[in-house]
């Protein structure tokens, strides 16, 4: 399996290292031609305004939308914003998932946090079911899901922080900043 990581800006290297730990070939995607031959794509954390602008400047928006029709895409944080249909402000989006996202939903950096999440879909990875420790950096919230999108994880107060729609996955936190490979394994099961 060969997975691409959008490398316009952000923590793409952390994703590549996670994929390599799982024995998967991982390549950087900066131009449309780099999508050829990939089985799936990760859009990393970073600044969604920067990644969106560069995706427009280098003609990636339409190729990414087409890729997402038939291939697995996972967006973490900024990547989740790009996958969404609506973020209440003008910014380039892929509009692939039926989710509405609020940027910087928890406030500024001093409000960034870590928390344990209960994610039943991850129980089949690893020896025994255990919580998923998630890192939120100036994180967005998935305000609502519609259509065929469904909620994958919430905070204790019910706010949505992960969603899935078929082979598309969005998380407002950063599995690539941890040593826990379960979320990457889950994504690979969608790309397979």
């Amino acid at each position, binding site marked *: 399996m060969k997975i691409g990581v959008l490398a*316009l*800006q952000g923590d*793409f290297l*952390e994703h590549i290292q996670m994929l390599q730990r799982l024995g998967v070939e991982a390549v950087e995607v900066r131009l449309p031609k780099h999508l050829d031959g990939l089985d799936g794509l990760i859009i990393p954390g970073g600044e969604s305004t*920067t990644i969106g602008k560069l995706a427009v400047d280098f003609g990636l928006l339409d190729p990414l939308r087409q890729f997402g029709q038939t291939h697995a895409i996972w967006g973490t944080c900024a990547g989740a914003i790009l996958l969404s249909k609506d973020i209440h402000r003008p910014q380039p989006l892929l509009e692939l998932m039926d989710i509405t996202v609020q940027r910087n939903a928890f406030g500024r950096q001093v409000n*960034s*946090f870590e928390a344990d999440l209960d994610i039943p879909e991850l129980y089949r990875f690893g020896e025994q079911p255990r919580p998923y420790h998630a890192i939120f950096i*100036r994180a967005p919230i998935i305000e609502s899901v519609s259509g065929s999108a469904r909620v994958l994880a919430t905070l204790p107060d019910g706010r949505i922080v992960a969603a899935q729609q078929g082979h598309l996955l969005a998380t407002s936190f950063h599995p690539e900043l941890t040593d826990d490979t379960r979320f990457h394994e889950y994504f690979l099961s969608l790309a397979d």
Partner: protein
Amino acid sequence: MEQQVATFAVKKGLAQMLKGGVIMDVVTPEQARIAEDAGAVAVMALERVPADIRAQGGVARMSDPELILKIMDAVTIPVMAKCRIGHFVEAQILEAIGVDYIDESEVLTPADEEHHINKHLFKVPFVCGARNLGEALRRIGEGAAMIRTKGEAGTGDVVEAVRHARAVLGEIRRLQNMPDEELMAYAKSIGAPYELVVETKRLGRLPVVNFAAGGIATPADAALMMQLGMDGVFVGSGIFKSGNPAKRAAAIVKAVTHYNDPAILAEVSRNLGEPMVGRNISQMPESERIAGRGW
């Protein structure tokens, strides 16, 4: 399932999100919006860019919180602000107004000539300048969650940024070839905490994100720093002291993404207008250099 805030993973994590990006100095909300539209990953809010601090002299202090707040209101990307080396009350004020990152910066006039801020005490993360591995690891030991080269700010001359990047990265390469029994004496010789020397050897890189700063003025300068192995770049005076800031800013953003693609670098370097005038560091008296500030 309680939430933990201000952990080192969270502080360092924001810097990881900025990687492969450009952080731009801005002195007004309008400049901040131009920077955001050009693709900046963050802005550094300040009253004067380093070139003007140099030209005007006097004591350079933390900027007026009112200005920083206006810039925070103007953009959705992270906003950084500078405090003087060792001036922990300026840092407390910047934390109180909610900036996303504090730069304990040699560009401002130092408030303490022996000690830096104990950055572990803060919820907000810090970035600090460094000229070599020992200095970088001392700052991380004090709690810095991000490092940048010092370069020589406000000159438009990239030579010092290159020197500092090569020093840090070269020392890490030598460290990787060092047998473990030599690490304690090496830590002593460079004045760095032993545990961080061990961790740096294990990782083969600094334990935190490492940006280039100080003298970057063109897309080629930015790509040079990326090819040398830096994680991203700060551009201070180089953008808003140039002829066409919006165009130059966007070009530098593209150059950092496509730093390994000379055809794209050639394309984005065309017709950018006048660069900042710049000052040749080799002709600058020692007394005017600011990279030596920091201990």
